[in-house]
């Protein structure tokens, strides 16, 4: 048995080592001694992809000066009167339906990043979403897999460490990592209508297991992917079913799409056995080409309500302080409203970042030329820089996942 008591001489000697150690800590930040502490740090991130291209000029609107005047001229029906905005600063205000998000701003835990995008931005839904999902500097130089897939593959994530609660998603696709991607946790279990077919037989016979297939190595990629996916479903269904059954909430979620998705994310984050670090929501419907004045505020209200309840639950469960929430869309919308009282596909957009780890504030600002030079906002901040900051905060080295960053740093985004 090891004697853990130490003598006075040893104590002094070790204190000296300690001083050296502290010097070394500061001196060798890039040697991995720090990151050994940092990795697996139990920090969590929720990505909320508001698919279709959300109109961030209506989400966070200029409220004064030439910016407001120009925008008001461009958007006769879609502008919000500054008196109704929830002001974040003297120049910008949130849409009045975002009261819960505004509360988080008041707590200093909401960051808004203006003009975020990537090089060679696309105004095609599919191309733009792929660019966001891949997490690259330049859309024209893509990777073959989504950034969550790369992260999971590199750091050998379990299938539950990164989960999409909105079904298949390109951020999870294209590489060796197989994360759970379900349209909802409620239905993620095997049904047993008969007495003789169940995943129990899958397990017993090891029918799908790699181990039982002597020819696994020569299988085609799609064949391997299918085998792995079935294995994964078998191995995770019971755990998730149990988590759903045992979940409790301080405040219940509404039965809206985002309500259900935030609820699923709550379950994932608050069930220790799942060890989920990334939850991913994708809510379609933000492609508001017409009558935006009636449809978009409803979408924002749905977001804000679900968000507010999620925050309440996360705080009550002691998870808020280790949390990041990233709310984004594949592109913004045109600066001018169209003749159908809607907006068309735009360019860069504003991304909202929240959670207890966030350093609240406005990152960047809109320029008048952003509104007048083109029909859509130009890009200044890079998606990849945002992702890098999130991943680094989670304790993972972003370099092997993303390579270089570009553009202005978002180094102060998180505490």
């Amino acid at each position, binding site marked *: 048995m090891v004697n853990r008591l130490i003598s006075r001489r040893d104590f002094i000697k070790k204190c000296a080592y300690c001083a050296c150690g502290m010097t070394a800590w500061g001196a060798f930040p890039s040697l991995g001694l720090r990151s050994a502490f940092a990795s697996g740090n139990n920090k969590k991130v929720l990505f909320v992809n508001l698919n279709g291209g959300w109109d961030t000029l209506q989400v966070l609107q200029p409220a004064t000066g030439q910016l407001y005047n120009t925008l008001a001229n461009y958007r006769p029906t879609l502008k919000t009167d500054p008196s109704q905005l929830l002001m974040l600063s003297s120049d910008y205000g949130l849409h009045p339906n975002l009261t819960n998000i505004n509360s988080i701003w008041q707590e200093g835990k909401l960051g808004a990043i203006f003009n975020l995008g990537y090089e060679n931005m696309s*105004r095609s839904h599919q191309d733009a979403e792929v660019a966001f999902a891949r997490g690259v500097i330049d859309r024209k130089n893509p990777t073959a897999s989504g950034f969550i897939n790369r992260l999971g593959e590199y750091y050998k994530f379990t299938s539950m460490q990164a989960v999409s609660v909105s079904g*298949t998603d390109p951020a999870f696709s294209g590489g060796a990592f197989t994360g759970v991607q379900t349209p909802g946790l409620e239905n993620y279990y*095997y049904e047993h209508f008969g007495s003789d077919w169940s995943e129990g*037989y899958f397990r017993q016979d090891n029918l799908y297991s790699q181990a039982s297939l002597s020819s696994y190595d020569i299988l085609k990629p799609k064949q391997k992917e299918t085998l792995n996916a079935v294995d994964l479903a078998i191995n995770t269904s019971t755990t998730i079913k149990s988590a759903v059954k045992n979940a409790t909430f301080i405040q219940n979620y509404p039965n809206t799409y985002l309500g259900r998705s935030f609820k699923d994310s709550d379950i994932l984050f608050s069930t220790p056995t799942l060890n989920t670090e990334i939850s991913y929501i994708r809510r379609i419907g933000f492609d508001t080409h017409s009558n935006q004045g009636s449809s978009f505020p409803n979408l924002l209200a749905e977001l804000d309500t679900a968000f507010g309840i999620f925050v309440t639950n996360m705080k009550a469960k002691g998870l808020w302080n280790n949390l990041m929430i990233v709310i984004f869309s594949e592109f913004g919308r045109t600066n001018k409203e169209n003749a159908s009282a809607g907006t068309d596909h735009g360019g860069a957009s504003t991304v909202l970042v929240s959670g207890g780890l966030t350093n609240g504030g406005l990152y960047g600002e809109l320029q008048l030329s952003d509104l007048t030079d083109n029909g859509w906002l130009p890009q200044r901040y890079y998606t990849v820089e945002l992702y890098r900051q999130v991943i680094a905060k989670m304790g993972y080295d972003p370099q092997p996942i993303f390579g270089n960053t570009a553009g202005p740093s978002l180094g102060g985004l998180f505490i």
Partner: protein
Amino acid sequence: MGFNNYLQIVIIFLICVFTPEYALTTPKPVVVNPKSIFSIKKSNGKKIYCSTIKNVKTYGKIVSGKKNLFIPGNLFIKELKLKLSQAKRAKDKKAISSLTKKLKLLNQETSLNNNICKNGSDTPSPTPTSSTPTTPPTPFAGDPNAVSLEPIERNLTSDEVRTLFVKAGFGFTEKEQTLINDLGSSPASGTIVDRFMAEREEDNGVLDTVTNFLDGDLSKSSWQHTPSGQRQAIFYLMANTNNYFAERLTLALLGIWTVAGDVIADETFRHTFWNYYQILRKHAHGIADLPSLGIEVTRDPLMLIYLNNGENTKESPNENYARELQELFTMGPENLDGLPNYTETTLSGAGDIATAARALTGLTYNLNYSTNQIDVSYQVKKHAVGPHVMYPGTPYQFSAENYEDLINGIFSHHPNVKFFYAKELLKEYVTPNPPRELIEAFGKVIADSNYQLRTAMSSLLKSKAFYNPLWKDSLPKNSLLFGVEAVKILGLSKAYNYGEADRQMMNMQMPINLAPSVFWFNPEGWTNPAILMEKANFLSQILGDSTAQNSSSPPWDPMSLVPSGNKSPSEVIEYVRTKLGLPEFSADQKAALVNYMNTVRWYDASLHKEEYNNQNLDKVKQKGHGLYYLLLNSMQFQLE
């Protein structure tokens, strides 16, 4: 200094005091020429130091205040290894674990930084996945027949016949076998493809049943003709049709000319999706002339509403449909070299999208509550008079006056339309990522056919490429194709309760008349755990839930799935394998399945050994159906 920094200091202090001596030390520096030391700022803002040691640029640490003392990074590794060996000798498991992790990280970090020193810049380390360049892809290096659209000259094997019916139809069951019995076991490719594609009368009652699902009489206030009823009708039609090619092509066309039935909230007009689907069917059953299809879809009321072209007038232009017409329906945003196919709208209103939007003006609709139809009209006064010059300054510039000119012009002038359709159809019928050579070859065939898909598809289905082994088992079945084929194989195509099918399709993420995701039809997406699980649930339900077997007329005989007579487990397995058309099993797979046959599941879900009893008909049915469950879930069946 923030709280975290203080926390770090406290942690280090505690670690140092209460851990053995092998925790942290600094290696001895080496003496170098001060001029050989240089720094590089990494992309994350951190600075690292490098020095040339033995002609190799090496990462390391300079000793503060000493310009000629340098500690190469590998010395830290060496030091850590030494400490690790000490910890191992002391059998301190905690320290071993900690040092091993540190060593791993240190190795990674040092290797990364050494590369940065060597390259002189912070270039990205190789990502785990290969990059996909957009221009131009590597030439196809595999079997040239895999990209050849020359006719396959020899007769088809039975396996290739199955490939034809599975990939281009809805599976290969006894019904399809009967259709080609007279052609022998090894028919000529041309003969069998012509037979496969031929238009045939549907069986008695099939179309009536489809109509019943829809309840064509809109004056009735019934649950039918709902979005659910439409989905059931489509599922039923696919499971019972004699026109495999045309109904399958309809689904492929819906994947391109995508629309959402739920965009119209008013129940009065909820039949509009079905009407839209009939446009696609009409063309799939005919010559599938794409320009004509495009014109008809453009003036369809559901499409006018879905993509806002019904609001697009000369006074109030709306560019949504103009964009998607080019991006989703005809050419895609970029060509095969990654260059834009069209120009965006400028502030002055120029650009191909804005121009196309002007050409598309004039179509309007009216919700007619007296007829329960949406009337579409073309109003000259709402049309922006042209000529509208598309793609100006390019060799394929053309002038359009109205939407018909525009669509005809796009198909006849724009060079990428043929490649767009080639790629989309190859993704649907051959492989999810077709090589450029195959896209170009098929694109030429499509253009040569004047965009008549029946002609072009006939060439594809008779080609060497279509049957090439390289593309076998590379295409995951989408949920609908999987479900229809399973229902057919199990003999439930008429007896199945299609209300249950609809529920399962929703679970399998393919409610085909609702708003599709951009990735809805992307073959990449169909092999994810949740969908495979729901496919298993679908099978569990149709095999085990009596509500799924709507067996009153005609009755379904569950024993029809298992061989008659006293069969051994191996014989039953072979019977089911043949019925499903699966390849030979490996020895491991056979052993696993025999093991299944000799196992029973108790009430508490535990599994126990019990020899298969072929005298007990309940057991024969139970184990036989279980085999279907296992094998329909197999990788071999999931992939085409």
